[in-house]
């Protein structure tokens, strides 16, 4: 993007835009969707850790957003409302049996990659491994972790979205990171477990990676 710089607005006028969308303004709807769809993807991935279903679920959320926006009562709760739509979509997909059991992630050929096929495959395997490890985390930890990893999302915004205090967000992310570290294939799991004492449960069972390898061509 040579010669072009990017500036991000804090968009303090979101409520007015939500009001316009409620009144049926298609461009306001589009602006809201384009503003929020990235974090919606993070919420969906946190509650249904499957890349295979992500695009379908996003489309489902988009359709519900457009068809139900007029039922939103409080403009200031727009993001919470949108998150609830995403949660419902992810959970319904799980109930409908689309959800693949943990350890049986699909091949990751559809993930965007760079370079040649070998690089792409390696990248897909790496991302698939990370997604698998994230899927082993407690649900309450997954969402703040993935939201934080999404470009542009800060603790304060995540706290507002999840309706929890910012320090709780930070603590959950820090704990999630520890669980990820301890679940790494090269993680010093036994030492860490001993050090932290009884009651600590490693994030990923030893069989997780072997199961992933079975599922990856």
């Amino acid at each position, binding site marked *: 993007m040579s010669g*072009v710089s*990017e*500036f991000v*607005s804090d*968009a303090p006028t979101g409520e007015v835009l939500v009001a316009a969308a409620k009144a049926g303004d298609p461009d306001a709807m589009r602006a809201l969707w*384009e503003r929020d*769809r990235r974090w919606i993807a993070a919420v969906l991935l946190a509650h249904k850790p499957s*890349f295979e279903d992500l695009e379908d679920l996003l489309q489902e959320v988009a359709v519900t957003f457009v068809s139900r926006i007029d039922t939103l009562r409080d403009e200031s709760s727009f993001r919470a409302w949108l998150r609830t739509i995403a949660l419902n979509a992810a959970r319904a997909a799980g109930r409908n049996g689309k959800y693949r059991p943990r350890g049986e992630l699909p091949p990751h050929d559809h993930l965007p990659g760079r370079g040649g096929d070998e690089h792409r495959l390696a990248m897909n395997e790496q991302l698939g491994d990370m997604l698998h490890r994230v899927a082993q985390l407690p649900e309450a930890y997954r969402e703040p972790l993935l939201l934080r990893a*999404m470009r542009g999302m800060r603790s304060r915004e995540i706290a507002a979205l999840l309706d929890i205090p910012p320090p709780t967000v930070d603590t959950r992310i820090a*704990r999630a990171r520890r669980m990820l570290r301890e679940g790494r294939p090269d993680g010093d799991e036994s030492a860490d477990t001993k050090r932290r004492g009884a009651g600590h449960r490693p994030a990923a069972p030893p069989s997780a990676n072997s199961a992933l390898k079975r599922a990856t061509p």
Partner: protein
Amino acid sequence: MNEIEKDLLISRCVQGEACDEEWDRLVALAAEEPRVRRELGRAQRDQRSLAELMESAGAVAERVGLPAGAGGEASSAAREGAGVHPFPRVPAWLGWAVAAVILLAWATHLGPASNAPQGGPDTTPTTNVAGFPTARDAFQSYLDKGREEGIVLSEQPRRVIVQTRPAPSGEGFEVIFVQQIMERAVVPRLYHYGGEDEYGRPTLVRWEGPSRERM
């Protein structure tokens, strides 16, 4: 420092949020407990994978528009093609602001970017840096000159670590990081990212501009 405090410190460091004082604490901690250095390395690798994962998720999200006729790309493109101004029910400046991303298009004759190489590696100018013994000296000169001209506002103390790995020589570590410079520019025109055309190419729409107070 208890375990959760250490975890929080590592977390802040890998997220690029730690201040100098926190980095100092981490370095001191790593000197006392070698395990901390190992954990930091693992956390950085995880952070890189997480960032890649969420970039991929974001890329998927950006492919998904609203259904046509409800703010979808097709309907908007048709309106724009017909000369209808977007956001007819809200003030124009509001729509631009809430669109969240404002692109600043540089006039070709303005700003340092206009002098940047455009045609590939073989066009890289070398004369501007020939007088400096090292790249670091050239960089420092850029900062000094930029401050003098009002282009460079500050150099951010926070450096975002992207990757660390053992140095190829076998001694020490190679650290890849992003260094952030805050710059300012005065441009004659602003353009807003206006979505994509029918070929999927980004389109820029000129912003007529709100009053100065609203910016």
